[in-house]
């Protein structure tokens, strides 16, 4: 286990593995997403209540899930980097942030688009919406902190600490609906979340989710590869790796 971690932690090794894995994830993502979209838009039955409006769920829910999932990943990578001083982990964490922010933005955008017909307004100061917005701020904060520190070493450590502190907010965001409900106005979401979903609808949703995950994996590996190359720009293996192409 240890040697494995350390081996993976060595940039050239990581670079090689990542280079090999990326296309797999990429193609898998493409296949799953295309299939999911097709299924979601044409195959899945129309919702008896919302008619076709509900179909945006196939983008909304996966991106909302990913926004949280990526944050947890980022924090884990950051923690590994901080504790064992593995630069590669920092590189991965740094690579996660913009992707996570994009998915968060996507979740917000699709949610808003959905909200307009459903609730008659683009935006409501409801717990879940607000906490998702806060997640976007968390990502922005992480990226801004990195950008604000010139020294790479310090930027790594400082932003890692921030990512770890920020994890506290993830469960709050995830369970905000339940908590807030008990405290305050019955959430508009529970109505929509009609728990037991029709399996015909669910399968395409899961497919989209898997597709988004693969997409994330492909992008994060690509970004991390670039990051690793950049950081090791004056080392021999980088030159070899680039010439080998």
């Amino acid at each position, binding site marked *: 286990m240890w040697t494995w971690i350390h081996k993976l932690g060595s940039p050239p090794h990581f670079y090689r593995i990542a280079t090999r894995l990326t296309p797999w994830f990429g193609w898998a993502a493409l296949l799953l997403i295309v299939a999911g979209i097709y299924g979601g838009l044409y195959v899945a039955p129309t919702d008896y209540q919302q008619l076709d409006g509900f179909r945006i769920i196939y983008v909304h829910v996966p991106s909302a899930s990913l926004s949280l999932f990526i944050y947890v990943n980022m924090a884990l990578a950051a923690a590994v980097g901080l504790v064992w001083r593995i630069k590669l982990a920092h590189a991965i964490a740094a690579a996660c942030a913009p992707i996570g922010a994009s998915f968060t933005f996507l979740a917000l955008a699709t949610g808003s688009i959905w909200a307009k017909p459903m609730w008659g307004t683009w935006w409501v100061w409801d717990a879940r919406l*607000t*906490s998702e917005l806060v997640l976007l701020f968390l990502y922005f904060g992480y990226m801004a*902190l990195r950008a*604000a520190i010139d020294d790479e070493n*310090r930027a790594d450590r400082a932003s890692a*600490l*921030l990512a770890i*502190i920020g994890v506290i*907010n993830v469960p*709050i965001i995830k369970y905000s609906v339940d908590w807030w409900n008990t405290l305050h106005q019955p959430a508009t979401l529970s109505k929509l979340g009609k728990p037991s979903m029709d399996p015909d609808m669910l399968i395409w949703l899961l497919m989209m989710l898997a597709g988004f995950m693969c997409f994330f994996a492909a992008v994060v590996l690509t970004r991390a590869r670039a990051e690793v190359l950049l950081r090791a720009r004056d080392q021999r293996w980088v030159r070899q790796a680039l010439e080998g192409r």
Partner: protein
Amino acid sequence: MMDIPGLGTAFVLQVKRDLQLAFRHVGQLANPLMFFIMVTTLFPLALNPMPRLLEAIAPGVLWVAALLASLLAAEGLFRQDVDDGTMEQLALSPQPLALMLLAKTIAHWLITGLPLVIMSPVVGYALFLPRDAVPTTMIALALATPILNLVGGSMAALTVGLRRGGGLLSLLILPIVMPVLIFGARATDMAMTGVDPAGALYLLAALLLLAVSLTPFAMAAAMRISLD
């Protein structure tokens, strides 16, 4: 290894010195309080001062003001110490940095947070906050303001190396502090509408415990990075 003074002694010493420094600047002392009062007096001015409206927004104003006041104070929590080099010496002292930073934050709360708590009935009165909601609000503020200070302190420690990381600071603090605001305002709201606010208060207390036990280490780690 030399005999060094115990943790308690060091803690008290640090709190005392920070209070001493604060009292040397009566102005600085009054600052967050002033701010708090300003927010709450300016509001009625900027609005049509209808009691019904004021009453409806009173908890919001009170809580947002408290949050902003602590947030703005957080900005300067460690900046001066880092700039004048005393933080460097603190990091090199044989006392645990986490403890010393906790002491600094507590001193800071005594200067900035406690006055807010004490003043809140007056401000509440000015905003026509129902009298029943006042004790709950005070307790909630007393629980919430230290959390705000502790979180603000951790983020300040992270950004203090960056000259004027101010905007960054609020960007970092806001998301983490939001639950505190929500539960705090909720407690006031519940007390106003006659619901038992114990649940929200317990939650705040739990958050405070969590913050006291975790943030000092985060602060110390962040500060060591900033000093590097």
